[in-house]
């Protein structure tokens, strides 16, 4: 297993952790009656993300944001591995991505401005550099 694939697996597990971090407070705040329901708009009153506390809302947005990043990162990791282009540079990018996405969650939850955006950008840049490395 290349370091990129290890980082990808850990990033996917991070997403599972992010799910739990979001779902537990959301269920406590909203009650199972709402979260287990089919969530039809006329019964909910307002979208669920508007009914939770600010911190839980941030954890929801952090989760949604990581989907986008994770898909791009998955493409970068698998193509780099498949085409035998793994180098110390691409491995360093992969670990940078993982560290950035792990730091992104508390940065969002605690509203660290502008650190959250800078951390996001570090992960985004790491993925972009891996994609460039895979292409050349």
């Amino acid at each position, binding site marked *: 297993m290349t370091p990129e694939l290890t980082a990808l697996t850990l990033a996917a597990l991070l997403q599972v952790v992010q799910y739990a971090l979001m779902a537990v407070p959301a269920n406590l705040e909203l009650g199972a009656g709402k979260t287990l329901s089919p969530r039809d708009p006329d019964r909910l009153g307002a979208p669920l993300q*508007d009914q939770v506390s*600010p911190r839980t*809302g*941030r954890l929801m*947005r952090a989760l949604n944001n990581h*989907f*986008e990043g994770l*898909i*791009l990162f*998955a*493409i*970068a990791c*698998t*193509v780099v591995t*498949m*085409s035998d282009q793994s180098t110390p540079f691409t491995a360093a990018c992969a670990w940078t991505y993982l560290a950035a996405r792990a730091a992104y969650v508390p940065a*969002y939850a605690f*509203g660290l*401005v*502008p650190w*959250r*955006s800078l951390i996001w950008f570090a992960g*985004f840049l790491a993925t*972009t550099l891996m*994609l460039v490395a*895979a*292409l050349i």
Partner: protein
Amino acid sequence: MTEPTALILYAFLVIVTLLLQATGTMTQLGMGYLLSSRDEKRTVSGIAGRLERALDNSVTAMVLFAPAVLLIVVTDSSTNQSVLACQVFLIARVIYLPAYAFKLTGIRSLAWTAGLLCTALLYFLAL
């Protein structure tokens, strides 16, 4: 162009879409809001809204396209047809972005359909 190259190029297209969407959002809502925790929801309109929806759609398309390419490679099913499907997918999605941004209604839906059919063809070829 091999299938993985097409996938990488598509990833770049999504990155470009993301950057355009972020620029549009920044123009309408301001850098301060973009950097904030966005606890109060603000929405964009016009071209920034269309870029936001185009990005959402491109990410969905990427989730379907990436496994298809990986399957083609892993199962050794690469043929001229699968390469062509990847090329048409790429062209369709390149057309999709400006078609959405500039409200070319019929063309956008046509490009979207072409992209989806190409992705479906890749899964069919991998079987």
